[in-house]
């Protein structure tokens, strides 16, 4: 019955639901974006490993930034002492970074790469480090041989049609033998990983200089062991850095958790903006629905009178108009769902190609359908209740007299 009444004014009904469409659309977009963000976060966290500590001068949380600046670098010598004294860790691996270097192969050239010097055990720090070939070995590491492992994007740019293994590239003009390539690892907040070239740390020192700040990767060998290892790492590092008992740590022991905190901040922002937009559009949407329901009730005064004469109770009239309002909102959410699905499909593709943003899915999460339905039912009931109540309370005699 309610549906039939709406059919008569399709255009009006569709226009009225516009606010609801925008509201539900915002909710869906937000859900889509946050779901993408979550999957990206998991991907990123898996890159850093859930049982790996990163001992560094810098604090990843961004706190103590000023203090970090004034701290002395972690030297290779300190790393060696640290490694020697650590008992609980599975692997202790030094790394150092240098950014934005020119890399060539034949006529092809790439800028903006990140050169990482690392110990040979670095391949154990993260899972699935190698796509093809191999990581450099202990001998190559010890002897500072010019070998390199390429990030996925570097392989793509410099070796579009050629197998890079066994080829020689030039980093800052110096020749390096490619021994392995990495799979695509880049993810949200860590997209530089695909522009990374890993070379033996000792070779790295030769290329840049030994006076480099190191980050020491400490793999605990299980997330459950992480706290023990952290405890030991702090103690050992304090000794290595010759800190007196009353002095604060002049280093940070970072882990993926810090990354998660930064992501959470982003989530809060997305969520906040989304909620504000959603609230506003639902306000507009409900006013629209309420308005059309008032019109509908007024237009159908006579019908209400007839229905009451035939035995409709206040409750059944109330329900009739509430169902109508909810149906309007459900229609709105259906339109929003179709629209948002198209945006997700096209948007994820465009963002991937144009901006390199890969974490957005091309489909909406299924749970969003449930959310959209629940939200539209609630909005429909809230917006419809006052007009429906007015219709339900009409005096049958008065209503029958209406034209």
């Amino acid at each position, binding site marked *: 019955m309610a549906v039939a009444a709406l059919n008569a004014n399709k255009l009006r009904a569709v226009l009225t639901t516009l606010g609801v469409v925008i509201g539900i659309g915002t909710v869906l977009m937000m859900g889509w974006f946050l779901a993408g963000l979550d999957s990206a976060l998991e991907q990123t966290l898996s890159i850093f490993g859930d049982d790996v500590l990163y001992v560094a001068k810098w604090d990843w949380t961004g706190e103590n930034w000023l203090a970090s600046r004034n701290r002395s670098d972690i030297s290779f010598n300190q790393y060696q002492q640290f490694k020697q004294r650590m008992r609980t860790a599975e692997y202790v691996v030094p790394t150092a970074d240098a950014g934005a270097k020119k890399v060539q192969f034949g006529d092809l050239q790439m800028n903006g790469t990140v050169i990482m010097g690392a110990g040979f055990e670095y391949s154990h720090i993260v899972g699935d480090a190698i796509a093809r070939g191999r990581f450099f070995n202990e001998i190559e590491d010890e002897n500072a041989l010019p070998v390199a492992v390429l990030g996925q994007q570097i392989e793509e740019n410099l070796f579009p049609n050629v197998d890079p293994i066994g080829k020689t590239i030039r980093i800052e003009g110096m020749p390096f033998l490619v021994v392995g390539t990495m799979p695509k690892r880049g993810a949200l907040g860590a997209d530089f990983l695909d522009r990374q070239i890993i070379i033996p740390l000792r070779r790295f020192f030769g290329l840049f200089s030994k006076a480099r700040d190191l980050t020491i990767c400490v793999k605990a060998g299980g997330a459950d062991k992480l706290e023990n290892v952290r405890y030991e790492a702090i103690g050992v590092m304090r000794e290595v850095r010759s800190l007196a008992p009353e002095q604060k740590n002049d280093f940070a022991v970072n882990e993926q958790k810090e990354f998660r905190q930064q992501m959470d901040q982003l989530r809060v922002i997305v969520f906040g903006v989304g909620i504000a937009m959603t609230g506003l559009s639902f306000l507009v949407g409900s006013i629209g629905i309420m308005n059309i329901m008032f019109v509908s009730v007024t237009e159908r005064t006579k019908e209400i009178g007839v229905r009451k*004469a035939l035995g409709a*109770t206040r409750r059944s009239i109330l329900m009739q108009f509430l169902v109508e309002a909810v149906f309007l909102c459900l229609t709105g959410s259906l339109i929003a769902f179709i629209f948002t699905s198209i945006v997700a499909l096209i948007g994820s593709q465009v963002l991937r190609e144009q901006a390199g943003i890969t974490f957005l899915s091309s489909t909406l999460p299924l749970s969003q359908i449930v959310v959209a339905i629940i939200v539209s039912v609630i909005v429909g009931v809230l917006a419809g209740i006052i007009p429906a109540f007015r219709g339900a309370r009409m005096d049958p005699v008065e209503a029958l007299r209406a034209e």
Partner: protein
Amino acid sequence: MSGSSSAQPENAAGEVQVIHLANITRMYVMGSERIYALREVTLGIRRNEYVAIMGPSGSGKSTLMNIIGCLDTPSSGDYYFNGELVSTMNDADLAAIRNQQIGFVFQTFNLLPRSDALRNVELPLVYAGVGSSERRERAVKALEHVGLADRMTHKPNELSGGQRQRVAIARALVTRPSIILADEPTGNLDTKTGDEIMRLFEELWRQGNTIILVTHEEDIARHAARIIRVRDGRIESDGPNEHRLASKEPAAAGIA
């Protein structure tokens, strides 16, 4: 019989009064003025009567009809419907009485324009909570009863005025009500079609239905067996119709 029986319905010797109004007053307050639409009306209608309520506009006959139809409640006085006091009932109980005991037929038919004949006739059964298959069955029977077996899936705008009123009558009959309350049922019809509708009422009466006709037209009222005339909120006269226009006297006349 005298319509001004003041006996309680359950006391009426051997006779069940479907409608029993005792000292019914309906008063409206308009600003500082009190307007009496009905004053101390007492009235009884028995099963299978065919009554016409007559009166000029403003006489109070519409108010009387609304109260009899449980669409309105009196300001004072008692109204018994089938022995049940309805004048103090709440909205939901009144809705149930209207739904199950009263079949309304309106001057303007008042069919739902977007529903076909069958759906229109089913509507009271929807509110009565009758299951869909029984609903369909009973609606079909009611439409057959009024001679519209071949028009069931037509929408009101595909039907003539007379056919629309037949649908409305089928809708009134479908719940097997105690009374059929018809408000100017031929007011929007031409004379010939109006006569057909009046013949249908005659037939329904002979089948045992109680019919209350509200009209201001003498020609229409003349079909009834009893005429109640209302003026200035009071019953002016109430008695058997001496000039009945029926083609044939009913076999089981419910009048003395």
